């Protein structure tokens, strides 16, 4: 049986998290189908058809799916999913929102946030903020899974030549409606996909001081992240939070600036290739995971670093 992958998109572009999910799915089985459910999203389906390894794209283009409302989308995915061995989605806020509903509708469990595929029914996933790794076997006929993007390479976005089939079921539960959104606008790369991430914590003191990190990030073509304390204090918006309950990142270089290194923060960044910590407290726990530790006042060290690069 084939594997159904749920594409992450905004009706105009296919999001990179989909590509990492395709790689994970390819380790579970051979025939990969990609569902693009949205409104006015034909361009996404076209892009999806080019993804290497995908043999069929299912396009569900309907107003009910335009905002990825979980109530509607889960009905569609559960209906289609009956004929698959696996239903797989990225562990983004959309995937996390929709997939457990799909699992419940199919009366199966869900395995969340997998970081490795050991066999078609056996997966590794972090638990306890990443302080332990569980190996779990699914006992269900249909496996419902979300995938941690940073744990899998991205599949090539070109080279495939899948067919695009329109699927008709329109499910509108009629119980939820989109009201508004406030999306952060940034020209920097997406946090979860950036090769350089510069994150700031409470040590930054206020929102304006994040400009220091922004200029360092811009020089390196990186993204800017934050600790929960920095978000809670209102320095920066919530979508910048890295950690157990924020975003998971694994860039080539992670700069932790004015961040103490709580376990919940480490859970989101400790798989980075190289970690640089700048903190004025030489006892800060962040230094226990950093490859390069600089005990310094960030207000001196960061501008100096930026000017010398």
């Amino acid at each position, binding site marked *: 049986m084939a594997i159904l992958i749920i594409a992450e998109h905004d009706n105009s572009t296919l999001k990179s998290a989909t590509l990492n999910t395709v790689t994970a799915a390819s380790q579970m089985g051979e025939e990969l189908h990609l569902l693009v459910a949205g409104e006015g999203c034909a361009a996404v389906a076209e892009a999806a058809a080019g993804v290497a390894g995908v043999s069929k794209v299912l396009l569900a283009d309907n107003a009910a799916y335009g905002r990825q*409302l*979980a*109530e509607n989308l*889960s009905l569609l995915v559960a209906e289609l999913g009956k004929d698959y061995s696996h239903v797989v989605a990225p562990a983004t*806020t959309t995937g*996390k*929102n*929709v997939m*457990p*509903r*799909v*699992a*419940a509708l199919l009366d*199966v469990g*869900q*395995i*969340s*946030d997998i970081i490795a595929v050991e066999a078609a029914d*056996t997966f590794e996933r*972090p*638990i306890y*903020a990443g*302080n*332990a*790794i*569980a190996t*779990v*076997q*699914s*006992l*269900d006929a249909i496996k419902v899974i979300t995938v941690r993007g940073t744990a899998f390479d991205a599949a090539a976005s070109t080279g495939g030549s899948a067919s695009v089939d329109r699927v008709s079921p329109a499910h509108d539960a009629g*119980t*939820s*409606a*989109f009201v508004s*959104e*406030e999306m*952060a606008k940034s020209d920097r790369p997406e946090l979860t996909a950036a090769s350089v991430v510069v994150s700031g914590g409470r040590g930054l003191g206020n929102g304006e001081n994040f400009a220091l990190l922004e200029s360092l990030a811009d020089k*390196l073509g990186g993204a800017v992240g934050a600790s*929960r304390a920095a*978000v*809670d204090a209102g320095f920066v918006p*919530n*979508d910048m939070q890295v950690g157990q*309950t924020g975003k998971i990142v694994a860039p080539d*270089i992670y700069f932790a600036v004015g961040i103490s290194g709580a376990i919940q923060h480490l859970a989101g960044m*400790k798989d980075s*290739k*190289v970690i*640089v910590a700048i903190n004025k407290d030489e006892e800060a726990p962040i*230094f226990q*995971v*950093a*490859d*390069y*530790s*600089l*005990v310094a006042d960030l207000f001196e060290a960061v501008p100096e*670093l930026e000017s*010398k690069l």
Partner: protein
Amino acid sequence: MKVLVAVKRVIDYNVKVRVKPDNSDVDLANVKMALNPFCEIAVEEAVRLKESGAASEVVVVSIGPKACQEQIRTALALGADRGIQIETEELPESLSVAKLLAKVVEAEQPGLVILGKQSIDADNNQTGQMLGALLNRPQGTFASEVKIDGDSVNVTREVDGGLQTLNLKLPAIVTTDLRLNEPRYAKLPDIMKAKRKPLDVKTPADLGVDLKNHTRLLKVSAPAERQAGIRVASVDELIDKLKNEAKVL
């Protein structure tokens, strides 16, 4: 409107858990346990709804061994009116929890069910959504704001790109994110009062739910430890190391 809050007993968030030497699971013997932080936020939100007049009663429910009554009492001390414990020896999987909660919802008929978005032990982030599907009710997950508006509720959600607001018809399900509110501390008189609040104990059999396992835990291992790195004395040395040793610049 009645509000039902589901709460879970978990390891205290300050404790770094250890894996058992035989890799069968994590070691929770003699570890400090607490109310899951997201559940605490859920209780606080429900209590605030009651204080504002939007809710008439706050009922908390927890599933687990007798020890979880401690967390129910904590919730009662924070202002919930009564508790229900569903006694199980082990902690059931999310789908079973959702099925048990669905039965409680059928009996209690709350206008709103509030849960934490995830428990900090299993980090699954599933139960609220599963409950929504089982009851065919709408959900506002990862909520940072909840506003009751007549027979509907507006929920602002923390999503990857920023914030999204949805309008849900009541009855509905909400799962909390960290910024929804800052829970109060229970005062001593409230803790004393909580001891006398009603707490019902039920079993899965009473509710007619068969607990089924959908997964098997094969192994739990410690994550790869990062090697502690080196101290650099200056920004110049840092740049040199990044360029010539790590070769990432």
